[in-house]
């Protein structure tokens, strides 16, 4: 009996060790990828902030600007860009952002543009039609792709395929904190003008075409920024998750080793008792 449980414990310890090896390796891979992703996210911030500033400035100065991008429409058809990861085992990273995005889209006529394999799978299984499946690998997307996506979205928006555009992504607050967020992109809402900032600005060729040229640029920039944040978040989440998995495995190995040693000792004690009893009789 004790021999059998010893063997079972030994097998469990061995399997736990190999699991620990995997989680440890994944943690280290995530940590090294996190470094690069974090740098990229930080490098993309000034571009996005400047673009956003110019955009706000422009819409403040010309609050009466007639543009298809600023008018609120009657319809309620939502298109949501959802950025999630390509792989699981990243703690709550995929689940959190997908849940948040789904809450926005549930019970509405909606479209999705999934970025990342997990997002594509999630919405396919819930039968939400997707605008395009070309970008279901988040790791492979570069700056150029973001601008291609932005132009596609602008065309579709102007053709009336959807009335609102949302972006669901994960904000990289720090290595330990990542918060999922939904950002409304279109129609553009402008902070109300206080009547100030009406200095004459020279627009070339004219304010309307400047505005319409900037919008796709702006969307592309936002998309790239969100993608950088999300990728950094994914690596950070995976690192944290794998770190705690490794710690759990360590704990479990300790506990099982203790049990195993007790069982082994018990068996030896029993054997000695049997021998002594045999010699005495």
């Amino acid at each position, binding site marked *: 009996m004790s021999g059998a449980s010893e063997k079972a414990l030994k097998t469990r310890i061995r399997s736990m060790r190999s699991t620990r090896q995997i989680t440890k390796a994944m943690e280290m891979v995530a940590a090294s990828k996190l470094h690069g992703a974090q740098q*990229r996210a930080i*490098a*993309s911030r*000034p*571009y996005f902030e*400047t*673009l956003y500033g*110019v955009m706000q*400035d*422009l819409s403040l100065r010309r609050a009466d600007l007639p543009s298809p991008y600023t008018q609120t429409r009657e319809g309620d058809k939502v298109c949501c860009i959802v950025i999630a990861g390509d792989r699981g085992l990243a703690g709550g990273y995929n689940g959190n952002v997908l849940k948040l995005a789904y809450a926005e889209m549930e019970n509405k006529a909606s479209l999705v543009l999934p970025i990342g394999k997990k997002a594509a799978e999630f919405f396919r299984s819930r039968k939400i039609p997707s605008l395009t499946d070309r970008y279901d690998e988040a790791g492979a997307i570069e*700056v150029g792709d*973001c*601008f291609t996506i932005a132009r596609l979205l602008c065309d579709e928006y102007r053709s009336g395929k959807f009335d609102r555009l949302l972006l669901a992504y994960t904000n990289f607050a720090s290595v330990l904190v990542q918060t999922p967020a939904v950002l409304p992109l279109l129609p553009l809402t402008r902070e109300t003008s206080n009547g100030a900032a009406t*200095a*004459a*600005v*020279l*627009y*070339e*060729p004219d304010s309307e*075409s*400047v505005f319409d*040229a*900037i919008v796709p*640029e702006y969307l*592309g*920039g936002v998309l*790239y*920024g969100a993608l950088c944040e999300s990728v950094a978040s994914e690596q950070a989440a995976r690192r944290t998750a794998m770190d705690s998995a490794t710690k759990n495995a360590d704990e479990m190995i300790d506990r099982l080793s203790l049990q195993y040693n007790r069982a082994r000792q018990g068996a030896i004690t029993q054997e000695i008792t049997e021998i002594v009893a045999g010699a005495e009789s």
Partner: protein
Amino acid sequence: MKTFPLQIVKPTGVSFEGEAESLVVRTVGGDVGILAGHTDYVTPLGMGTARITAEGQTRYAACIGGLLCVSGGSVKLVATSFEWEDEIDIPRANASAERARSVLDDKEHHTEAELALAEARLKRALVRTGVRHF
């Protein structure tokens, strides 16, 4: 020479930040030169060579897409792609141009979207390989 604060940003980082003497950049309407004291001005950018003079030194770059914004005397160049002359990967641009040309030569076997993409790619490659000094 009088200077103005110039900031050049692109999605992958900041290319220039500091005082500049002059900036010439290709906009959608042609080359535009900016000196200190320019009026407030916003325009989308085209594709072409940009010339930046700062601290007496003139540098050239390939600048593609984005916008130029002058506001209160400070200039912001928000580019989709901005590469200093010495950062440009010429072999890569040449290879890209070659690939794009082979697509454009074979019009029957490609969709319109593919042809448009190839044309855009060729244009970008030509801007990168054709940075001229002026």
